[in-house]
């Protein structure tokens, strides 16, 4: 239970920021649920208000239990959530061909949202436990496996966007938890090389660009790629062996990049072979929406028009033509920020971004001030969840991030995400409240 002095340590800045932003969001859901021709409102804003009240209760409830005690149960929470997630992926009611919702009679919940918190707990717990050894490369294996299990289940649903958000969260946790930066960079480089090469090739093929180019020809020839990858690997092995016998630093400088590039090229060949054409194209449409003005490119084009046409002061509440006349897709959930930008302009958008950044920065501050590593990791993980949702979602509406279907925390219409976010706020308050307790 609270002690009296703890009451004073409730982070009121955080709570007020959250209340303001959720109310702002509900106003926008009201606006985007309005049909100017039929003159009726779909009433989604009322539901969102209800969930906010639920979420608020959850937030307060979470502050009552010491987060450290919660941490002791993290393994059970993690396993339990995975089972629920698996059950959903297999037997959940499909909505738009995605089995992401679990129908509980009166309400449907989205277990993948809560999985984000469960993963955070177990990663924080593990990283706190292995704090001293985490610089070893093999120590990265278990956090990766812990992350990949829910990712694979969510991919099975299949919900690509939600699955992908786990990756930056894992990286943030590993980074804050003390993993070797060169290890993390190596993994990112491998993934980068593996993805970028097939994307460029697909783009040129799709856009019908002719002409031969020495570098492109090289990347097209998969046998040659295999060969180069093999040679690099051989160099790496030799350098490694030499390093083993005559320990000199510069051998390390050879075998690590050689291995990284070799693996990158190797995976790029695999991706060229195993990723279907339409999957590659989907990523390309994000890069250039005009390639597909009817499909997902349409969403980006319309969203950019909505945002851009907002100008400085916006078109006014209920007056955004893009939102009101239905040109903007998914305007209550994924593209809610576009409605804000269209109707409230640059001013409203900046206010919303500032409010959201207050939450993220406050989370990082709480992590810095936490009295233990577990709390610090948990708080930074929560900040990461918020931040990556915000950045990817707003980035998407501005056309600088792919269309992934990630909601904007606190603002987008949707109960599960809102309640998850409120619980996460509760945990942040919890950590801050107990920072001086010994």
């Amino acid at each position: 239970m609270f002690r009296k002095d703890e009451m004073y340590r409730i982070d009121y800045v955080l709570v007020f920021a959250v209340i303001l932003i959720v109310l702002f969001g509900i106003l926008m859901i009201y606006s985007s649920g309005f049909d100017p021709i039929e003159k009726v409102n779909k009433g989604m804003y009322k539901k969102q208000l209800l969930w906010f009240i639920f979420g608020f209760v959850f937030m307060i409830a979470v502050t009552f239990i010491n987060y450290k005690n919660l941490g002791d149960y993290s393994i059970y929470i993690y396993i339990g959530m995975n089972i629920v997630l698996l059950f959903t992926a297999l037997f959940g009611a499909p909505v738009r061909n995605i089995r992401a919702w679990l129908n509980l009679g009166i309400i449907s919940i989205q277990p993948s949202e809560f999985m984000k918190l469960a993963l955070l707990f177990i990663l924080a717990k593990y990283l706190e436990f292995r704090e001293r050894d985490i610089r070893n490369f093999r120590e990265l294996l278990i956090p990766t496996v812990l992350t990949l299990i829910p990712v694979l289940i969510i991919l099975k649903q299949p919900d690509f966007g939600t699955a992908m958000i786990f990756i930056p969260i894992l990286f943030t946790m590993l980074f804050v938890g003390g993993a070797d930066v060169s290890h993390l960079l190596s993994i990112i480089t491998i993934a980068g090389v593996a993805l970028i090469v097939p994307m460029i090739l697909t783009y040129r093929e799709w856009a019908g660009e002719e002409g031969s180019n020495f570098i492109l020809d090289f990347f097209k020839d998969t046998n040659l790629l295999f060969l180069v990858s093999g040679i690099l690997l051989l160099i790496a092995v030799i350098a490694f062996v030499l390093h083993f016998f005559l320990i000199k630093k510069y051998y390390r400088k050879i075998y690590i990049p050689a291995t990284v590039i070799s693996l990158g090229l190797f995976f790029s060949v695999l991706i060229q072979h195993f990723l279907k054409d339409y999957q590659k194209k989907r990523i390309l449409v994000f890069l250039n929406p005009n390639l597909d003005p009817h499909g997902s490119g349409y969403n980006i084009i319309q969203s950019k028009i909505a945002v851009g046409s907002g100008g400085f002061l916006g078109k006014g509440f209920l007056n955004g033509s893009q939102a009101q006349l239905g040109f903007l897709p998914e305007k209550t959930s994924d593209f809610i920020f576009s409605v804000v930008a269209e109707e409230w302009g640059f001013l409203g958008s900046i206010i919303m971004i500032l409010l959201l950044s207050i939450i993220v920065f406050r989370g990082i501050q709480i992590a810095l001030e936490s009295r233990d590593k577990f709390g610090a990791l948990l708080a930074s993980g929560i900040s990461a969840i918020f931040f990556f949702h915000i950045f990817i979602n707003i980035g998407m509406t501005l056309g600088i991030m792919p269309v992934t279907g990630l909601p904007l925390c606190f603002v987008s219409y949707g109960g599960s995400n809102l309640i998850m976010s409120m619980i996460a706020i509760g945990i942040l308050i919890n950590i801050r409240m107990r920072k001086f307790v010994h």
Partner: protein
Amino acid sequence: MAQSNLKLRMLEAFRFRMFSFLAIVFILFLVLIVQLINMQLVQGEEYMLKSKLNMESNIPIPAPRGEIYDRNFQPGGENTVIVSNRPSFNLSTIPARFESKSELRKTIKKLSVLLQISYDETMQFINEHNPWERVVIKEDVAFSLIVKIASHKNLFPNIDWEDEPVRVYNMGNNFFHTVGYVGSISKDEYEKYRGRGYKYYQKIGKAGIESEYDVVLRGTDGFIRRIVDVRNRVEGEEIGLNPIAGNNLVLTIDSDVQAAASDAMEGLKGAVIVLKPFNGEILAMVSKPDIDPNLVISRANNKLIRELYNDKDKPFLNRAIQARYPPASTFKLVIAISALEEEKWNPNLTYYCTGKYTLKGYVDKDFYCYKHHGLLDMYGAIAESCSTYFYQLGYKIGPTIILKYAEYMALGEKTNIDIPGEITGFIPSKKYKMKTFNQPWYDGDTINLSIGQGFISVTALGLADFVSGIVNDGVVYRPHLVREIRSPDNAQVIKRIVPEKIREIPLSQVTLNTLKTGMRLSVKQGTSRRLSYLKIPVAGKTGTAQTRSVRKDDKTQHAWFVSYAPYNSNPENAVVIVVLVEYGIAGAVGAVPVAEQIYLKLISLGYF
């Protein structure tokens, strides 16, 4: 101690990493804000325009194209309307407005059944266009079908209709090569003219006056501005801009003369030009074979149009200005001019015609006349079209002077008539022969040139211009087809085309008199005496051009007849008629009867 040292170091490392994370977050937030500034503040207006484009569905209201009348136009009177318009409806769409490709396909499928058009061709046509621009699915759709579509709008989302007047060519074939026709703007034309207000869905003049005066005729399209939602449900509607009708044209052509010329040429191939040398007004201009433009303007007749394009008789070719023929005996007039103007000759000097002329040389070579004429002076030689006379005269003058006079008479230049596509005649030179055949100019070439054969070729209009110069005492006016540009309601004249003097050839009175007298003599008693009975005095010159084509019958020669009337009176009333009949046997047989019919018509219309 070591323990706590390690702890401190780890705390330091942790803090460093937290601050790095903070920095990354901060930078990425800045990226969002910079992009927001870029989109909303820098490019805001551009996006605003796009958002307006989204919700404003602008339905064009095509402007009615100007009407075209013949020269007898009287404001408020019962006039001959050569080209008019009739109301019709187009069905159109903007493909990008459909939620998905499959919905577009579904809608077009339903539409193609209703309209009885090919689904595949329509889809192909749509796919060839920018999906954000309006595409006309079918032109000239029956009103009953429009009513059907309008009453089932939910079945045909995003399908709009606009009324677009259709061009009606009331005179059928008669004006095909002069007035021309309109057609949908092509990709190339659109690229070329888009800066001048042309829209991809519009019609543009493709040939003749429709093309040359397109800017005058077209008017300005208006549009209805509709505020629509994403499913094209209409929220509001207003007229954005009323169309401004195009201006009307009054031609110099007399539709009765044009019809007479066309009738006279029925079944023949060739060209007729009737013009007034005093101001360059063209009374009739016919090229055969021709086409009914009403067939060509409809997109539904694509197949027929393609067939016509590949027709070996080339009906699209305007033989009056786009084809070259050897001038044949009509060129004898140029020989006469050169001889008289260089003062080496006077019209009373004679040559004796034995029916042939022998060119002395290493090997003697004979050139024949069609008849044994005996002793002839220049008048007689022109009237009888005696070749022997001109062989000797031409040989005496030499090619340099003859060709200089041909150029002087502008036979190798454009007349700059006010319709597009005109080509020039061709005047050879010694240099040309050396370059093309790698041979010097032989005396035989000069002999050939003297009767308008060999390398030289002219256009029918070029020859008409030349005759005009003779009739009009050396002054040549630019031949033209349009007399007035009138406002859409015909109430005011926007522009009256003033005759434009393009050339003044200082021919001596002796030369002019000789030519006129010779030509008059030709009608009185010479090769064109068939016209001697007409009650106005006609003067003319026939020509029979040898062609290189091999034909079984005797029709291996083109027939020319250049003429004017009345002889020796005020040039103000004069009319020049040039007739060319391809494979017309001979000038006297093939071309003179055509001119005869036209003169009869002109007389009955009171032109003289």
